[in-house]
């Protein structure tokens, strides 16, 4: 601490703790610090997300700038030098001489963006429909939950594939590659909203009979205001858990679709696309083109998954 005296009118921090310091002393943070799995997986997720966001700064090359590529560098093994500049290719290069480390960083950007956007889309849709179903009830509820039941009969990845296929059919040929990422987000999002809707509906059914909702209704608040301002904040913690686990699933779904060739286009390769490309070189011995993107995908999916599992246990007081 510094010795400089406080100005006379300074607020006394001890009596009125800031929101941040309250949050830091919370039970949640305490639980987090005590669990090595949570700390390690959180650190890994943070590292991966940060390096994806900062890809243009970290990556030694821009894999999408044809000027920086040289075919003479193609198929360099990991840790071999660039034939022209002498820089080291840490993770080797692919057939076109693209630095694998750089393509992974840029690919992870796309994987994470698609995953996060798809989950956000699914979350907004699921929360809205779940709140409506739980709060309004009646026919609205019946229709929403029946649709959810039917969709749950089919595996999410199949639903996503179908939506992707139909959307591809609707978009004109010249826009297909540009639209692919957005179509992918919508397809994965639409295949995943049911989980959110079911949980939010269940929680809303419990919350709506509590006194505070009755009080809000008494002072004349309208339905949407009660749903969004009063009920929603109280049903958010299970939503957070599902969102984290959904993120891992969405990243894997995106990778699977891209791997199958019905996802991110070769012009915007995600980790799945990179694995698809790398598989072609498995037999000729260039293992690094496949291995490193695969490991990155695995690390990403596994760490997000473990974090989600921990969140589920930490936010569920019954399990303690």
């Amino acid at each position, binding site marked *: 601490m510094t010795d400089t005296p406080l100005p006379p009118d300074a607020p006394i921090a001890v009596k009125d703790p800031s929101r941040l310091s309250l949050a830091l002393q919370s039970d949640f943070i305490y639980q987090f610090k005590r669990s090595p799995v949570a700390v390690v997986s959180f650190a890994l997720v943070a590292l991966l997300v940060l390096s994806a966001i900062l890809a243009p700064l970290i990556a030694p090359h821009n894999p999408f700038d044809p000027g920086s590529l040289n075919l003479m560098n193609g198929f360099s093994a990991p840790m071999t030098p660039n034939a022209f500049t002498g820089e080291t290719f840490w993770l080797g290069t692919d057939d076109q001489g693209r630095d694998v480390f750089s393509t992974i960083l840029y690919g992870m950007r796309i994987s994470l963006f698609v995953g996060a956007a798809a989950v956000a889309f699914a979350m907004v849709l699921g929360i809205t429909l779940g709140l409506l179903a739980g709060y309004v009830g009646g026919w609205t509820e019946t229709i929403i939950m029946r649709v959810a039941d*039917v969709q749950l009969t089919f595996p999410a*990845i*199949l639903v996503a*594939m179908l939506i992707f296929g139909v959307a*591809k*059919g609707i978009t004109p040929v010249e826009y297909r590659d540009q639209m692919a990422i957005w179509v992918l987000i919508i397809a994965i999002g639409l295949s995943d909203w049911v989980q959110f809707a079911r949980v939010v509906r269940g929680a809303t059914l419990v919350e709506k009979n509590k006194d505070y909702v009755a009080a809000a209704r008494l002072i004349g608040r309208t339905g949407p205001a009660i749903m969004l301002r009063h009920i929603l904040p109280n049903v958010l913690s299970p939503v957070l858990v599902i969102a984290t686990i959904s993120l891992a699933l969405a990243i894997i779904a995106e990778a*699977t679709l891209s791997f199958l060739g019905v996802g991110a286009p070769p012009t915007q390769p995600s980790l799945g696309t990179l*694995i698809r490309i790398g598989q072609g070189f*498995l037999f000729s011995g260039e293992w690094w083109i496949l291995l490193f993107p695969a490991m990155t*995908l695995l690390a990403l999916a596994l760490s997000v998954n473990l974090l989600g599992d921990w969140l589920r246990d930490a936010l569920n007081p019954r399990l303690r």
Partner: protein
Amino acid sequence: MLAYIIQRVGQSALVLLVVGLVAFSMFRFVGDPIDNMLGQERTQADIERLRDVLGLDQPFVVQYYKFLSGAVQGNFGVSYRQGRAVSEILVERAPATLELAAVSGFLAISIGIGLGVFTAIRRNGVAANLIMSVSLIGVSLPTFLIGILLIYLFSVELGWLPSFGRGETVRIGGWSTGFLTQSGLRALILPSITLGLYQMTLIMRLVRSEMLEVLRQDYIRFARARGLRERAVNFRHALKNTLVPVITVTGLQLGSIIAFAIITETVFQWPGVGLLFINAIQFVDIPVMAAYLMLISVMFVGINLIVDLLYFAIDPRLRADRTAGH
């Protein structure tokens, strides 16, 4: 009970009707069928004739009805890409997928239940803990990575097993089978493990947790006290009582095996229906996509219905509840 069955069958029929509507809308509104079927050199007369043949000038409901009645009779139109009847292509591809799914399902159920019982009985043993940890990794690995890993190990490095295709097949009537030749059987090994692994771990974990639950019950203790052999207690008394949830989940997983066959078939270039579907999406071959959607829905809805009814038949408590409730 009859009312319940009728209700469930009615629900299933409704779902299929809706799926049929989706498939029909894809067929009708995604791209122009006339554009897709006629080449660049077409006359107005050609267009009119095809419009008439396809019945595109008729009201929507009539067209939907025709589409459905065609689909029920196995007529899904002509593939845009291959220029052949979709039903013909499907019949040709179906054996590959069904054989793969059957072997994977068998592996998943037999090994899954076996390992589940083992890990439950020896729940503190080293081997059981090892199996549990490995299964955790198995659940987190995406299917396609498992496939690639197996190909790398057994085809590239060891050179023991083929990495793609079905090997030699023998035709029996309209069915081409890989079961009768050595290369066909060898080709089945890696894809069926890839496809069945996830379901296997799922069944194993389920059987384990159910077994642990049951083994704690009083009647197991009494069975032991009566001096029954360990094996009789474990299998005849304990395993039998875990089967209700296991059958439900396993039944539902059979549908997933067919769906996830898409991924496995792509990794191993297995000439089945799943690979056909992926190619159809890549080339926007709408009739094939619509037909696949219809087929897989019939399968899923059918499996769900059967599982529900089975559940009902197996567990007498449910029956009592239903009849008392209604």
